[in-house]
């Protein structure tokens, strides 16, 4: 029992319970002292926020910083050692690889949860009429599906970048290991709070939380706001850490243009996450305060304007889409050369296109608002800036096809998912311009066409590359390979079902079926397509279930991975054993060539540094 | 940072402070009388630049040195 109580996760949960109770008690107490009747909403908000703080105290997130504030020193993160075995994934570890896996586990858990929400309401939509659930619960489910999966994706990106970036650039750890752990653990209580939204009345706005509806939705809305606010901070902290790591911790000789493409993609993503995330936090905070204190930002009766919310919200939420996809596109560029045995075509252009997408991404937000009643003169400029995104994205596609061209392809499971990602993301990209063009968007806005388009981009830009990355780097974590047969079943089941699903969604969308509706008139003729979409959605879920089984079984029973199983030039495969050891590279390496020169005779990317160069490492490696 | 002239840093602080104080006074006069707001923006940006450069030492970002280890 005592051992159980020393696990970081457990003490965190206890801290969250105490914090929540203190928050609720404090507000109830103050109101009682002032002679007022207790009020549920402020107490719940303060409880949720203090609960998250309580979790962070309980898990030990403030301990070292408090020591510093007292003027005492703590051990260096390089001297940190984990408890061996599986238990280390449950505590406050400072090792970037452990934190990466922790991120991954939480992300996959939320993915399963968010997917389950979708299955429930998809079952409801298979037929006209309401069969299983109430209208309110349906609304809550669609909002939860959106936001739980967004948080899952943010965590999944952090998982990939936390685990891979230090390995790829030859760092011992992240720049700020304590901040790194703090950022991860912040997401845990935030996830608990967002799930609590279901049990506190839910909310009926969908994931966007537009006022005026969100200003009078049930209490669950506030839980949603608090959770997103803290999950946003987790994302900001992670992004900050990644930027500093990439700028300051690279191996000797790795100048910016010898960095792996994935590091470029993470840099671009993190720049967006670092800055734009503040706007969704601020906008949600403003709605929350409107509900709590009657501050009328978005209340026309008080001179406010609900359109302001949409501007603030989309200033994050559109670039956020690029946060979701850029790391995935980086994974595609990273894996493709390994499996076609050819240099990546146009390295510099691909690296720059990530930054290009990130920068253009800041100037396109109002294309979500063509029908909102905003100033009409804004429509055309935003249409053009939106279509401009196709240019840097096109560069990536050009590079991929040119890389594949006349390559010697090997169809291992990671490669299958990489190819799937390219095709699905292409479909997502092609269905974008009809939505970014004002004339067609006026018809398509808020229909299932948007849903189909969005799932194409996110599966192509995130899910497929994520699966590719997991199949590819899994041996670095466990020392064993994932089962190829199950992996191939996963791919060949998921890809066609997924395509049927999104094509079906787009088909009903073109006919005018609104997204977020719980029921539709049988006379509209949507029913057969909706039925097929539901079946396809369940098949996608089945394939992901196979993936989960593979994930668990292979950890114990998979084939042992010896050496450089993919014949990759990347240092984590060519130097390190599997699983990767604590603190990564025992001896630093020098970068002496370009990362993707596969098939070029005598070309080298990294070589182990001679011993006397060890001192040089500390001075950093700008160049 | 120049350690041979220990007074120069302190004196520069005084100069920057005086500049900021004068600009704030100008701002107040412009704001309370009817003058174009563009001046207020220009002054605010100028004041912000002074703080960034002289108080926050933004230049230290580019060099790895910066007065102390």
């Amino acid at each position, binding site marked *: 029992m005592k051992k159980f109580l020393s696990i970081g996760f457990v003490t965190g949960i206890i801290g969250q319970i105490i914090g929540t109770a203190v928050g609720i008690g404090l507000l109830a107490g103050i109101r009682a002292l002032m002679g007022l009747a207790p009020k549920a909403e402020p107490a719940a908000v303060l409880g949720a926020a203090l609960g998250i703080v309580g979790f962070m105290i309980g898990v030990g997130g403030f301990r070292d910083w408090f020591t510093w504030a007292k003027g005492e020193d703590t051990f260096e993160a390089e001297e940190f050692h984990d408890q061996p075995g599986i238990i280390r994934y449950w505590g406050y570890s400072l090792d970037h690889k452990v934190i990466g896996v922790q991120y991954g586990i939480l992300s996959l858990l939320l993915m399963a949860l968010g997917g389950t929400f979708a299955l429930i309401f998809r079952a409801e939509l298979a037929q006209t009429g309401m069969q299983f659930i109430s209208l309110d619960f349906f609304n809550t489910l669609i909002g939860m599906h959106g936001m739980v999966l967004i948080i899952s994706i943010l965590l999944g990106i952090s998982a990939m970048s936390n685990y891979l970036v230090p390995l790829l650039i030859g760092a011992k750890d992240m720049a700020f290991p304590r901040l790194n752990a703090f950022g991860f653990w912040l997401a845990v209580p935030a996830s608990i709070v967002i799930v609590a939204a279901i049990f506190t009345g839910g909310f009926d706005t969908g994931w966007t939380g537009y006022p005026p509806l969100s200003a009078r939705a049930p209490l669950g809305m506030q839980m949603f706001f608090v959770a997103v606010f803290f999950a946003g901070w987790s994302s900001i902290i992670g992004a900050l850490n990644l930027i500093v790591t990439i*700028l300051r911790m690279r191996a000797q000789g790795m100048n910016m243009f010898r960095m792996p493409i994935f590091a470029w993609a993470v840099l671009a993503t993190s720049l967006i996450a670092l800055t734009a995330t503040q706007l969704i936090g601020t906008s949600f905070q403003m709605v929350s305060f409107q509900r709590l204190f009657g501050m009328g*930002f978005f209340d026309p009766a008080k001179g406010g*304007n609900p359109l302001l919310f949409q501007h603030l919200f989309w200033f994050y939420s559109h670039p956020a889409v690029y946060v979701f996809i850029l790391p995935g596109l980086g994974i595609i560029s990273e894996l493709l050369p390994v499996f076609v045995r050819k240099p990546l075509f146009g390295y510099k252009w691909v690296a720059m296109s990530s930054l290009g997408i990130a920068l253009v991404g800041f100037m396109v937000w109002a294309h979500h608002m063509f029908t909102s009643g905003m100033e009409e003169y804004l429509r055309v400029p935003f249409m053009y800036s939106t279509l401009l995104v196709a240019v840097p994205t096109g560069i990536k596609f050009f590079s991929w096809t040119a890389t594949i061209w006349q390559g010697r392809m090997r169809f291992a499971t990671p490669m299958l998912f990489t190819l799937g990602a390219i095709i699905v993301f292409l479909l997502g990209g092609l269905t974008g311009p009809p939505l970014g063009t004002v004339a067609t968007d006026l018809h398509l806005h808020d229909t299932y066409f948007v849903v189909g388009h969005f799932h194409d981009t996110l599966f192509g830009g995130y899910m497929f590359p994520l699966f590719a990355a997991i199949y590819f780097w899994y041996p670095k974590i466990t020392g064993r390979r994932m089962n190829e047969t199950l992996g191939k079943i996963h791919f060949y089941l998921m890809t066609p079902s997924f395509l049927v699903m999104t094509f079906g969604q787009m088909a009903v969308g073109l006919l005018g079926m609104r997204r977020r509706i719980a029921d539709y008139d049988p006379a509209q003729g949507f029913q057969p397509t909706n039925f097929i979409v539901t079946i396809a959605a369940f098949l996608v879920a089945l394939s992901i279930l196979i993936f989960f089984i593979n994930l668990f079984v292979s950890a114990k029973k998979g084939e042992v991975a010896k050496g450089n199983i993919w014949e990759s030039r990347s240092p984590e495969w060519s130097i390190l054993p599997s699983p990767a050891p604590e603190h990564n590279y025992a001896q630093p390496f020098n970068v002496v060539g370009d990362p993707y020169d596969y098939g070029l005779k005598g070309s080298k990317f990294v070589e182990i540094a001679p011993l006397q160069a060890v001192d040089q490492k500390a001075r950093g490696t700008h160049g | 940072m120049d350690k041979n002239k220990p007074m120069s840093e302190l004196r520069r602080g005084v100069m920057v402070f005086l500049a900021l104080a004068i600009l704030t006074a100008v701002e107040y006069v412009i704001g309370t009388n009817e003058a174009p707001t563009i001046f207020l923006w220009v002054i605010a940006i100028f004041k912000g630049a002074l703080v960034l450069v002289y108080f926050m030492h933004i230049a230290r970002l580019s060099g790895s040195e910066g007065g102390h280890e």
Partner: protein
Amino acid sequence: MNTPATTLEKRAYKIGTARVGLWLFFLSDAFVFAALLVSRFYLLGDKRPHLEQGLGLIVTSVLLISSFFMNRAEVQISQGNRKAFVTSTLITMLLGIVFLVGVVGFEWGLAPFGPADGVEGAMFYMMTGMHAFHVLTGVVFLFIILRNGIKGRYSPEKHWAVEAAANYWHFVDLIWIFFYPALYLIGTV
């Protein structure tokens, strides 16, 4: 391998890294205030809330003077004058508290509207509240470096905590440089 020279170099590099992190945090936090500034002009346009002009000038001056002493404190510790550092930091902290009392204690009380009275009130309380929250955290940081400074934990070679706290304080001042005209001066009542 671990000669004193290399550890010194290593630590200098580490502080450079921490500095990049701190500035990225400023960049991120600046977006919150930028969002509020944009909201103020989107919602209020060229109207400004009816506020006490004299009080506004006083709190602005207080914050400005505090920034002056903050800069002085940092210079003093970098030259090894621990006593002068402690005095300047103490003055900065006290001025910070005066600013908080001025805004939250007086301005919030004197304003002819509450947070729920129209969009002027909402914007005013949100902007000053968010800024005051940052001043409050700045005061906490100042208290920490003051306490450690009295204990003699900082030296000309080793005072990253002072630099970080000072930069944060200047950052909070920087925000007010834009918030003061936006709330008090720009537009007509």
